[in-house]
């Protein structure tokens, strides 16, 4: 066979394309990846009940559904932009391309703070639930922070070794979690409190009541993680459709699951008693409600899945933070040491270790202060993380408008302008309500300084980001020019680029 004949013959199929297509992801795979990280049982058993207890709002169920609707609209523009920005999906690269580089660096700082808060807050839930389970079932009394530190140690090791939980194990766990959450919901709806089944907590009128901001941000916190779909855009069979479909499915499934199981809780206790019941039983509420009807086996199974789902979420957010620090280090926005990876495993080692140290510091601080793991760590810190992600989503939504303003890139009006404008307005409104009602969210007095301290931490992070962007522009214009472009287009960060060597450049 001569090579000439090979090249001149019109080839019908491409060997390269076919071979690569085999290893690509379909919609179902992407949905599994992001939902496993979202860990549904963490939200239905932990987030929703703490939400009722601490905010005192009975509107939590409708809040989940409302946020799902808003995020679906947000996803329209977000996914449209992901088709044009080749980057592994960090919010900050979208914001820097849509709203300018200073905003991008500010967003990066907010993101690092927010995702760290999400991860570290989860240790509170993990420690408290595990220690409660050990005490109840085995009669072993271990303090929550010892359990949390045990989880921390495992996450620290898995983070550096990059041993992810196996995809199939995660998928089975996810399905089991959804099944058990659905089972519990059905069981408690079948045994309503006096007054029968009422839909009152799903009434949209709650969205206009006073304390709803706190409920809304609690709901946002439950959805954090769905934004990761776009990370896989380069690895899917059909990037145009797969990512969009996977994102909508993830939002719809989680939204319905969260909304309906939170509603089921209110049916079982009666809408007027849910807050009191949640305050009494905390994260045990759902298990207390189903115990008389399903027997001990399912309650234990539920507990175990609750603990594993918390752990999966911990590990997943740990990887998220590690990746964020890695990509910022690689673009030299943060010290380039953070861009180092482990040679043997490819784990973003420096980023992972940084996160681990931070988490250790916070855990020790909480243990020494004797603070409550559920209220002060799990709920306070994760909803603060949720607030940060809400800020990022609002900015990203605005960035989509900015990005398509200059060049429509053959996207429709709905994708470019209409949906992003609606999403920006809705997310902005939720953000305003949240900050306005942060005292309710924390369950503290409106004059308490903490009420401002938590939201202000993001303002400080954003300000530091803006200052840092200014310094980069003055000192390292080569790095400043490539902020948010990702490594594909970032000459300053690739040692093989054609850029003229700049005096005093350190690339060690």
């Amino acid at each position, binding site marked *: 066979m001569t090579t000439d004949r090979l090249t001149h013959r019109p080839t019908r199929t491409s060997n*390269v394309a076919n071979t690569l297509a085999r290893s690509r992801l379909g919609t179902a795979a992407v949905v599994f990846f992001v939902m496993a990280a979202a860990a549904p049982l963490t939200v239905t058993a932990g987030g929703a009940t703490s939400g009722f207890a601490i905010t005192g709002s009975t509107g939590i169920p409708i809040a989940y559904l409302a946020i799902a609707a808003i995020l679906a609209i947000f996803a329209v523009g977000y996914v449209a932009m992901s088709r044009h920005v080749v980057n592994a999906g960090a919010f900050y690269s979208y914001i820097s391309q849509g709203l300018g580089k200073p905003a991008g660096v500010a967003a990066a700082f907010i993101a690092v703070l927010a995702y760290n808060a999400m991860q570290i807050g989860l240790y509170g839930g993990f420690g408290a639930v595990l220690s409660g389970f050990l005490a109840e079932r085995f009669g072993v009394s271990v303090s929550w922070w010892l359990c949390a530190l045990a989880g921390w140690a495992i996450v620290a090791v898995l983070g550096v070794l990059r041993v992810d939980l196996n995809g199939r194990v995660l998928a089975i766990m996810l399905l089991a979690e959804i099944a058990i959450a659905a089972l519990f919901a059905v069981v408690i709806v079948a045994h309503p409190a006096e007054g029968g089944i009422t839909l009152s907590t799903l009434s949209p009128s709650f969205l206009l009541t006073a304390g709803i901001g706190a409920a809304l941000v609690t709901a946002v916190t439950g959805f954090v993680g769905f934004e990761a779909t776009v990370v896989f855009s380069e690895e899917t069979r059909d990037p145009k459709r797969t990512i969009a479909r996977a994102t909508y499915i993830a939002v719809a499934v989680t939204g319905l699951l969260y909304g309906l199981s939170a509603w089921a809780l209110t049916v079982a206790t009666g809408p007027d008693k849910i807050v009191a019941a949640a305050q009494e039983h905390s994260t045990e509420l759902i298990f207390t409600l189903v115990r008389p009807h399903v027997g001990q086996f399912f309650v234990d199974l539920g507990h175990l899945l609750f603990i594993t789902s918390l752990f999966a979420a911990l590990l997943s957010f740990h990887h998220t933070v590690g990746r964020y620090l890695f990509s910022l280090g690689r673009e030299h926005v943060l010290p380039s040491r953070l861009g180092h990876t482990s040679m043997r495993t490819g784990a973003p080692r420096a980023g992972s270790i940084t996160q681990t140290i931070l988490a250790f510091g916070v855990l020790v601080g909480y243990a020494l202060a004797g603070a409550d793991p559920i209220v002060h760590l799990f709920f306070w810190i994760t909803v603060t993380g949720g607030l940060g992600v809400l800020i990022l989503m609002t900015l990203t939504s605005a960035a989509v408008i900015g990005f398509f303003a200059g060049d429509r890139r053959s996207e429709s009006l709905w994708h470019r302008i209409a949906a992003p404008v609606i999403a920006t307005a809705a997310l902005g409104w939720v953000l305003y309500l949240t900050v306005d009602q942060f005292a309710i969210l924390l369950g503290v007095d409106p004059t308490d300084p903490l009420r401002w301290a938590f939201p202000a931490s993001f303002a400080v992070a954003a300000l530091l980001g803006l200052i840092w962007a200014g310094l980069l522009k003055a000192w390292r214009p080569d790095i400043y020019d490539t902020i948010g472009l990702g490594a594909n287009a970032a000459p300053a960060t690739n040692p*093989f680029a054609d850029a003229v060597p700049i005096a005093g450049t350190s690339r060690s």
Partner: protein
Amino acid sequence: MLADDFYRLSHHDATGKPRLHPRAIELGCAAAILAELISSRHIGIETEQIQVLDRRPPADSLMHVILDQLMAEVARAHTVRTWLAFLGQQAPEQIAQRLLRAGHVRLQAQRRLGRQVGLLYVPVDMNTAYAPCASLSYRLRRHEPLEYESLCLAGLALASGLDTFILDGAPAETFEYLNHAVRTLWPPMRALLFHTHAAIGGAVLAHRT
């Protein structure tokens, strides 16, 4: 040969186990194969795409196979990143087979808990296997000028993240020297290494379970 040396560099000299994570090995080996074809001026790289410059078959059978694959789909204008991903699926195995044919490695079953889990290509002679690493390390640390072939190998090492292994414990100036040296490579090689570095970095970010 360049790909052989990269394979030796990226695998342990005594056990034959990889020193890098699987994606870096795959992309690095694919890049090493393409680098050989660039060096023999069979292919070039222009604006993210591979051009076939010389259709005459190379003497080496592996290079012949790869060039055939490149020529068969030259009209489809795949990007360098696509080619790296495609060739990477087989590149480590192909280079190992070439080393096996030349008698540099032998096959050994890899066992874990008494079960065979795979095959390892174990170097026959440790000194030959370690030579590329030793030579690069020695000369880079003394800031000696490198000739073309070694410079390409140094570039591949830097792109795949092996630089920290070769220059373990070296002062920052040595890394600086390596960075400076690879910038003097000719444009097609630098373009290849640019895409290799970016692809391996991307693999870290898009890692999935």
